[in-house]
């Protein structure tokens, strides 16, 4: 990995974008210019999205994601690489979100979500996006976190277990509960007969 850092062009020749996460982490530990920006550009959106889905507020989500990145960059010289960088980052984001006591409720009113519209129209898509947010907001935070890590970020069960520091069996059962809860709440909020499909 050290050799990869030395041989890769870290300035402006484009090879930075092709380096894998582990190489970039090693480059960050050596304070190589550009490596931080590359990691940031790769994981900016997933981190903010995860935080947004957890908190329901974009401003809070960006604050949490910013705090997570700062912690990661500060601790990167001590990162031993036992877990993937993404797992590490998601764990920090999730923990920050779960500990966020300044959480604000989403301002979207349910009545607006229920506004009737033609199927597959742009407003229908917006309605479903807002309804999804409402459903997530109504879920217990622990179930919400595990659902997002699996179905939004695509982490494996093992990675989720590492990120949330849970036994694998707990991940399996909690994810099943989370999916059941999501479908039940969706059914309640959207009205009878409108199932998640």
């Amino acid at each position, binding site marked *: 990995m050290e050799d990869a850092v030395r041989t890769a062009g870290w*300035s*402006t*020749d484009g090879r930075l974008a092709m380096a894998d996460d582990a190489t970039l982490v090693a480059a960050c530990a050596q*304070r*190589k*210019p550009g490596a*931080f*920006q590359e990691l*940031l*550009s790769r994981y*900016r*959106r997933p981190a*903010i*999205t995860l935080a*947004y*889905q957890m908190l329901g507020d*974009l401003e809070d989500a*960006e604050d949490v*994601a*910013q705090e997570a*990145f*700062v912690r990661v*960059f*500060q601790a990167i010289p001590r990162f031993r690489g036992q877990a993937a960088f993404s797992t590490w980052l998601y764990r920090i984001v999730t923990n920050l979100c779960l500990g966020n006591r300044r959480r604000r409720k989403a301002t979207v009113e349910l009545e607006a979500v229920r506004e009737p519209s033609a199927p597959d129209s742009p407003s229908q*898509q*917006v309605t*479903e*996006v807002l309804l*999804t*947010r409402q459903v997530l907001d109504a879920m217990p935070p622990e179930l919400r976190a595990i*659902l*997002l890590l*699996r*179905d*939004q970020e695509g982490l494996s*069960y093992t990675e989720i277990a590492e990120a949330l520091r849970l036994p694998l069996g707990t991940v*399996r059962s909690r*994810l*099943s509960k989370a*999916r*059941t809860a*999501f*479908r039940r709440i969706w059914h309640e909020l959207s009205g009878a007969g409108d*199932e*998640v*499909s």
Partner: protein
Amino acid sequence: MTCRLYEEQLSSYMDGELAGARAARLEAHLQTCPHCQAELDAIGGIAMRLRAVSDALQVSHDFDRRVLRAFGYYQVTGWTRPTKSYLRPLVCIALSLLALLAGVWHYFTRPFEPPPVWQPQPAVPVIAPAAPSAPIPVAPDRESRRSQR
């Protein structure tokens, strides 16, 4: 086994996390149970709905700058934004063109000065030599004054 018990396994099956024998039993059940098949499809739809939310999200354009500043990146790395290598020749060419344009502009916009035309000069009057005048009295110096005494 009832549908309820199978439903608990649908989540793991969906993710490929159900062991072989149990997965085979569930697959056999799914062939004959439209309810459980619909449940499985619904579980698959959750990921799609979550991604629709994330796709619609607009992230602040200055997020990276805020993170790097909060981290103290510029102090840690001593980093200054380098001029991109492919921009350097472009910048040189642009500056050369600007200098050339400025020169051309100056040449064509300077004030017009007609070339000097030769004109005969008037004859210069001859000045006669001046007549000898009286010598200018000079004050006697100190030595001559002494001798006169």
